[in-house]
Structures are given as structure tokens and as C-alpha cells.
């Protein structure tokens, strides 16, 4: 059940709202456009897959949506906030509070317990130790790892590691989970399990899930697919804004 108690204006209802996003890189003096004017709107509680071949610009789009990078041109509002008004610290706070990341290669801290890995975003939010522990434990339990709190990533399977990463993405109660090829390093069974968890989060908690993938099977599980090619949106089968 999506939360609907917001009193914010309709325009700020969206998790992401992008108008004419362009991102250019300078490679050895030559300007390369990775994105060439992308406009989209992803509402709260949506389950979206961004699909495209490698080099299509989907990763760049993901980095922009994740506030890891800034657009060269264009306006991006994340949870109603125009990112161009934020400094680096403000972007860090936005990532911390609004977005949960799930990466293809998990990105867990190797010599740190599952619990401490999951609690890490809360450290940067200034949450106290006991409260962090409680919330991290809750998040790990919700992905079915309540019994492996003190295990280190090296003591876990790939599927378990990705579930730890999902717990970490969730621990801060984000509005959006951005998952970059979350099943890319997993076998089919673990991949399905991870997708199942993401779908359940979306359905039960109303967290928007934005999935970047090049696998059609994975993309098929989303309720909306945005196809990116050559830095442009080629096809958007969802309810167009």
C-alpha cells in the first residue's frame, strides 16, 4: 500500500522528475554525450526497469538519478528537490535519506559484519549505535538474514551478500531503491530470489524500485520498462507523464 498522506503539491509527488537531462563527458578533448536529453517521471511506489544495451547511457542515467553525478544540462528533481540547488554535502544527504543503492557487485565492506554493513548509511545520518543496531537487525530480518547478523561477506554466498546489500539499501527507509544490475553476478535461483525481495518491498512498503538491467527476463518483472538507446529514451511502456 503506497503512502498517500503527503500534503506536498502534485509536482513533488514524483520520486524522480527529469526534463531534458544531458550528460557530456570530455574524453581526451572530445566531448561525448552519454545522455542527450532525457525526460521522464517516475512516481512513488513504481517498479521500473531501465533497459538498454551496454553503452546506451543507462548507467549514466542511473548515476544521475542516484545523485552520484550531476547533469550537464537539464533539470532533475529527486523527491521534489531540484538537485542543481544542492551542494555536494546536500547531494550526499539526499542520497543518504531518499535513495537506497543495490549494486551488481554488492559493494559490501569485506571485513565488516553484515550488521555493521547494513547500519553504515545510518552512521552518516548520525543515528546512535543502539538504534542503528536495532534497525539494521530489522532490515536483515526482512530479507531473511536475521540469523546471519555477525557473518562477514566472505562467509556468505553471493545471493546472501546481495540480500545484505538490499537490507543496507532499505535500512534508511528510502523513497527509492536504485538497483544496478542486481542479478548480474548471481545464478538464476539467487537472481530470482533477489528479484522477489525487490518486488515484495515495492508491493509491501511502497518503495519505488528502479532497476537497471540489460536482461529482458529481469526487466519483464517490472511493471514499467524504459528503453534507453544512444543516450535517448527509445521506448517507455509505462503511463507516460
Amino acid at each position, binding site marked *: 500500500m503506497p503512502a498517500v498522506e503527503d500534503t506536498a503539491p502534485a509536482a513533488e509527488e514524483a520520486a524522480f522528475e527529469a526534463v531534458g537531462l544531458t550528460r557530456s563527458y570530455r574524453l581526451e578533448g572530445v566531448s561525448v554525450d552519454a545522455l542527450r536529453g532525457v525526460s521522464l517521471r517516475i512516481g512513488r511506489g513504481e517498479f521500473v526497469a531501465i533497459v538498454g544495451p551496454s553503452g546506451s547511457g543507462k548507467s549514466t542515467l542511473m548515476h544521475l538519478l542516484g545523485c552520484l553525478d550531476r547533469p550537464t544540462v537539464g533539470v532533475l528533481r529527486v523527491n521534489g528537490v531540484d538537485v542543481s540547488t544542492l551542494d555536494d554535502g546536500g547531494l550526499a544527504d539526499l542520497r543518504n535519506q531518499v535513495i537506497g543503492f543495490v549494486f551488481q557487485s554488492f559493494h559490501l565492506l569485506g571485513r565488516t559484519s553484515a550488521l555493521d554493513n547494513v547500519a553504515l548509511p545510518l*552512521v552518516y545520518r548520525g543515528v546512535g549505535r543502539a538504534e542503528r543496531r536495532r534497525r539494521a537487525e530489522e532490515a536483515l530480518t526482512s530479507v531473511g538474514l536475521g540469523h546471519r547478523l555477525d557473518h562477514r561477506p566472505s562467509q556468505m554466498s553471493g545471493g546472501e551478500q546481495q540480500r545484505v546489500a538490499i537490507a543496507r539499501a532499505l535500512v534508511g527507509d528510502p523513497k527509492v531503491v536504485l538497483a544496478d544490475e542486481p542479478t548480474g553476478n548471481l545464478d538464476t535461483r539467487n537472481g530470482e530470489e533477489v528479484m522477489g525481495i525487490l518486488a515484495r518491498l515495492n508491493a509491501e512498503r511502497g518503495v519505488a524500485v528502479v532497476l537497471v538491467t540489460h536482461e529482458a527476463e529481469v526487466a519483464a518483472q517490472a511493471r514499467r520498462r524504459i528503453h534507453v538507446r544512444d543516450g535517448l529514451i527509445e521506448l517507455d511502456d509505462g503511463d507516460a507523464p
Partner: protein
Amino acid sequence: MRGAEALRMALEALRVNRLRSALTMFGVVIGVSAVVILVAIGTGAKEAVEGEIAGLGSNIILVVPGQVGLGAAPTQSRLDLTDVAYVRRVVGDPSKVTVAVNSGEPVRVGRTEVFATVTGTDQYMPNIFERPLHRGRYLSATDVDTRRRVAVLGSEVADKLFQDVDPIGRQITVAGVRFRVIGLYEPVGATFGVARDQEVHIPVTTAQRLVGLNRINGIAVGASGPDEIEPLRQKVVQALAERYPGERFSAVTQTQLLGTIGSVLGMLTGVLAAIAGISLLVGGVGVSNIMLVSVRERTREIGLRKALGARQRDVLRQFLIEAVLLTTIGGVIGILLGVGGSLLIQAVSPVPAAITWWSVTLAFGVSAAVGVFFGVAPARRAARLDPVIALRAE
């Protein structure tokens, strides 16, 4: 992020790389302990020399013919006992002036012979120099006036010649002449390498006859207080210059000696500390180097932390704290080693060592500062990493 959290994180990072952290610290440990030990030795040497000078007695002015100074050739003395009488009149109080005639002579008892510094002096010597008696008596006015062949022995001379026998009243032979022992000094140690316990004191008049000269080697004047030293010194030098126009006389005070030697040894201590400081600096470069390696190795971790909401200053603080922890923990260990080493040197070697709080505090402060200084560059590099690039790093 809270400060305590950053500290905990940094400690964790150091713990994870135990060996590397220990090796990096080692450079700082060596630097800091070297500073503490070398400063302790320098300070100890200075204190020892100052103690020796102070041990001579208080407010002494030594008058010698010629110019005293490094490289000055020894001057043939032309002073004699009439000059001593003259200086006594100038000073006004005869009991505050004494005299020395020095000669190295063999001293024999039975078959035992030692080489001693035979010093002719007078009854006023104990008024001016700190020379406590162990037994017997000092030279008297009558001893001097009647050229008695009596001697007061330094403790080492007495030990060598008489071993366990009480020397008082016994005969010794100095340069073939028989003397009677009337007194025995307490051990006083050496001053500037002059072994004062190897001296034999005899009446100055007897000494002059013994060596066949009527010259004296020096006059010592005792001032009544520290403020009197300088005026008295000038008065004596001027009076002698008037008596012997065209000749030079030097009067050296303990304060001058203390000042000269103190500044030389202070400089030496400074040089030692600076050399040790260089090794601390090298340790700091090591910290910087390791931190740069660490930042490179942990690029992905930094990218992840940033993605999860770490701000630049959170990352900066984390790495800076790591660097400062490396140097301050190294500093504390270095101080402990340095203090321990200084105490050991003091205990088992003749080298004096005195631990000074300023060197300990300075060494700790410098090691912390080294951490900040050499940690800033790697920490800034970490803080400024682009999260997109950092996350992609292998």
C-alpha cells in the same frame, strides 16, 4: 557522522591492517623515542656539568695570568705570594682569597706509589671551595707560615695508598720529601675532567720549596653573594692590571663558565633534537605514503561510503583521524620507549640522561602535527574522489 564514530571507524581500519599499521607507526616510534632519548642525554650532560661547576663552591672568581679562552696559549705565570697579599688588600677580606700552586708529583707510601696532583694552598681554601673533610683537619695558618710538611689527601689518593688503614698521622713521600697526613677529604668527583679526588693539598709555601719556584698558578676569590661577583671580578682584574701595566689577567666566574658551557651544551642538545626530528619527519613521510596507498586500495570503499551518504568532510575526517592515530599511537609508544631508554642509559651507562617534560610534550605534539600535516593530502584525495569513478574502481 559523530566524532566518536569516526574514531571507531579509524581504529577499525588500523586494526584490519595490523601489520601495515604497526610498520608505519614504527617510523614514528623511532623518531619520537630518538628525540626523547637524545634530548635526555643532552640535558643530562648539561645538568652534570652544571652540577660539577656548582659543586666547586659558590660565587668563586678564579684569577689567572694571561688570556683565558679557546686556543689561547698557556701563559707563564708571573704572579707570586706578594700578589696574593696584594689581592687580599684589594678585596679587603684576606679570608676570602686563596691560592694554588699545582704540580703533578709521585706520592708514595711504602712500595705503593700513585701519581697525584699536588696543590699548594692555604688555610683559606675551605672558605672558598666546597671541599668537605672526611677526617682530620684542614691546613692551618701555622702550617703555611712555618712551611710544615703536612698533607690533606683526596679520597682516591688515600684509598690507593692506604686501602683500609686510617691515613691520619701517617707518613707519605711526595717527590722524595716526607709529609705527615693531617686530613682526608670527602669524595667530590671530577670537574671538567680534573679528578679532584686525586689531589694532595699541602701548604703553598711548602709547595713552592718543593717545586723550586716562587710563582703561583692562580688566585681564587670568594664573593660574598651572587651580586658581588661581577664588581669584585672587575676590581681584582683592574688592580692587577695597574700593578703590572701591559699585562693581561683573566678572572673567570662560575656564572661565565655556566653560561658558556650551558649555551654550548644547549646548542648540542638542540642539534641532537633536530637530527632526531628529521627521523620523525621521515616517519611522517612514511605515514603519508601508506595513507596514499590505503586511499588507493580503498577507492571502492570510499565510493560506496559516498553513495551511502558520506560527505566530503566525513571521508576527510575518517582518513585524517587514521593518519593522526597512526602518528599519535606511534608517538605514545615512542615516548614510553624513549623514557624507558633514557632511564636505562642513566642506570647502566656513565652517560647522564635527564628526561625533560618539554621534550616529551614536544615529541607528542610534533607526532600529532605530523599526522595532520602528512595525513591531509591523502585524506583530501579520498574526500574528493568522484563516487561514480570510485565505485567502478577494481
